[in-house]
């Protein structure tokens, strides 16, 4: 049950027409599937069709062509009544949050009310989430009279209070203020732990995608250019667009602990221990940009370089002025970006042994 395709899109296209003329082809030939319990991230620049794709998933828009399957059932062209039934399996947090012209408590209760829940149950759920988002004191205020940040929190609560199976999050952190980013982060982390809940998140921020995604779909101009795990997408992008858009990243998962005397974090990734200046503990993902890694033939003379590993050249990709090297350090592979001139100067060939060095401040922890 856990590995089954909860959502399956088959050749979804969306064209917006105006007076029978083709106006805008927003999505073409989108096929993807999302497993139960996974966090699936759609990444792409503005205008690539992310919002339309999520609106189609949330049954707020019909695709021009193609089919949507929910647990094997075709939910593309349902009757109005059935559409509502399936829509209630989704929570949809919009990019720009909107609230109803009523009190904060009524706003949060709305989705539960339309589902016909008991009054007592609604009240206790609303109370619980109001406390969680820290708006308990404003429960009876009109939601529209609140500040932008508070409205964002109400909109988040309106959707997270619902007993949904799938959470569609459309560029949610793009407009959030800092405090709400943390709040949303807590909520997403909690959802990710619940294997019954599925998240489909859209973002234009590669780092956000790395942080949450189990799998990423790269959307470019209405087409999917690649679907894979973040590790693969960021280290071996399939096309130029993906490469340019996501930027290259070395991504590793490991276990972090803080070193007492220095206050730095030591992150164990298989047999390597990477030092980061970010204080963090527990399981983390770390990113190191390829251009932050320096190659040397000998071990660094400067002992202050905490991250220095011996490795072997596994691959050389010639990209013109820039070369990409894949350096294997035991089980881990690092992507290193180097100029052609340095490559020649260092006389780097396949299988040559060398050292990779990077600063603790260049290790980003997510």
């Amino acid at each position, binding site marked *: 049950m856990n590995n089954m395709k909860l959502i399956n899109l088959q050749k979804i296209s969306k064209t917006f027409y105006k007076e029978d003329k083709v106006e805008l082809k927003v999505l073409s030939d989108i096929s993807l599937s999302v497993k139960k319990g996974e966090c699936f991230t759609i990444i792409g620049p503005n205008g690539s069709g992310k919002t339309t794709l999520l*609106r189609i998933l*949330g049954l*707020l828009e019909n695709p021009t062509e193609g089919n949507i399957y929910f647990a094997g059932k075709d939910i593309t062209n349902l009757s*109005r*009544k059935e559409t*509502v039934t399936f*829509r*209630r399996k*989704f*929570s*949809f947090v*919009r990019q*720009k949050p*909107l609230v*109803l*012209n009523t009190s904060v408590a009524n706003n949060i209760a*709305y*989705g539960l009310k*339309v*589902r016909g829940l008991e009054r007592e149950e609604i009240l206790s759920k609303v109370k619980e989430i109001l406390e969680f988002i820290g708006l308990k004191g404003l429960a009876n205020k*009109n939601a529209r009279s609140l500040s932008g940040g508070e409205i964002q929190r109400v909109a988040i609560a*309106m*959707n997270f209070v*619902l007993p949904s199976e799938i959470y569609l999050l459309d560029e949610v952190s793009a407009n959030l203020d800092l405090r709400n980013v943390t709040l949303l982060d807590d909520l997403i982390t909690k959802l990710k732990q619940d294997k019954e809940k599925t998240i489909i998140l859209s973002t234009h921020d590669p780092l956000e995608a790395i942080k949450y995604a189990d799998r990423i779909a790269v959307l470019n101009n209405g087409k999917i250019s690649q679907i894979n795990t973040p590790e693969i997408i960021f280290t071996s992008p399939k096309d130029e667009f993906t490469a340019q858009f996501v930027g290259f990243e070395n991504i590793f998962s490991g276990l972090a602990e803080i070193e007492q005397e220095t206050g730095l974090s030591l992150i164990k990734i298989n047999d390597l221990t990477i030092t980061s200046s970010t204080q963090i503990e527990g399981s983390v993902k770390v990113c190191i940009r390829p251009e932050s890694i320096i190659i040397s033939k000998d071990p660094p003379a400067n002992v202050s370089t905490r991250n220095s590993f011996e490795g072997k050249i596994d691959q050389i990709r010639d990209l013109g002025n820039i070369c990409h090297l894949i350096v294997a350090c035991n089980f881990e592979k690092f992507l290193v970006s180097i100029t052609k001139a340095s490559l020649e100067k260092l006389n780097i060939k396949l299988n040559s042994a060398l050292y990779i060095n990077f600063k603790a401040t260049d290790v980003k922890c997510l």
Partner: protein
Amino acid sequence: MADELVQGFIQAFILIVTFDQEIWEIIFLSIRVSGSATFLATITALPIGSYLGPREFRAKKTISNLINTFMGFPPVVMGLIIFLLLSRSGPLGSAGLLYTTTAMIIAQFFLALPIIIGTTKAAIESVDPALKETVQSLGSTEGQLWWELIKESKKSIIAGIVIAFGQALSEVGAVMIVGGNIRWHTRTFTTAIVLQTRMGEFGMAIALGLVLIIITFILNYTLTHLQTKNE
């Protein structure tokens, strides 16, 4: 003339403070007729207006133009049409409704209907489509969505209803033709003022005119109050 005017005002004052029975009959009848017409028009117009508002279809432009035309439909012509339909030789003559309050309600119903449809349609059209989608995505049924849209645009809708009621109350042509201005039966503010003025009974006419103005003032005040609230 100045003397007549002063006399008229004195008489009007006496009629109002002594609760003259005929004046109060006329006031209640007017409010009952226009109120019923507006009420019936409202419950008919809300579903129609909110159905037309968010939808896009081929005939929409034509329908919109038609509604706008009927919003300013001349009451006298409406009176004429209803008269022809209800008169003994007309298609609905057998109902015997001519010169009854029912006939007046029918005429004013058709005058109020396009006003309320038009304002409801415009109000619902102006609701942010993103808000509609938010309500839908929270799991509302069609009916629940409809009710939220009405609530969202209630200020404009109430304004439309108040305007329609005010117009019905001060309209004279239609009620005159289909009601016949029968004393104690179908005589309203406006028809009474016309008659009393012609007969030179200025006291009564002024008294009724004052009451009508006061009612209009209260309606407008309520309207302004509603529209500036919560802003």
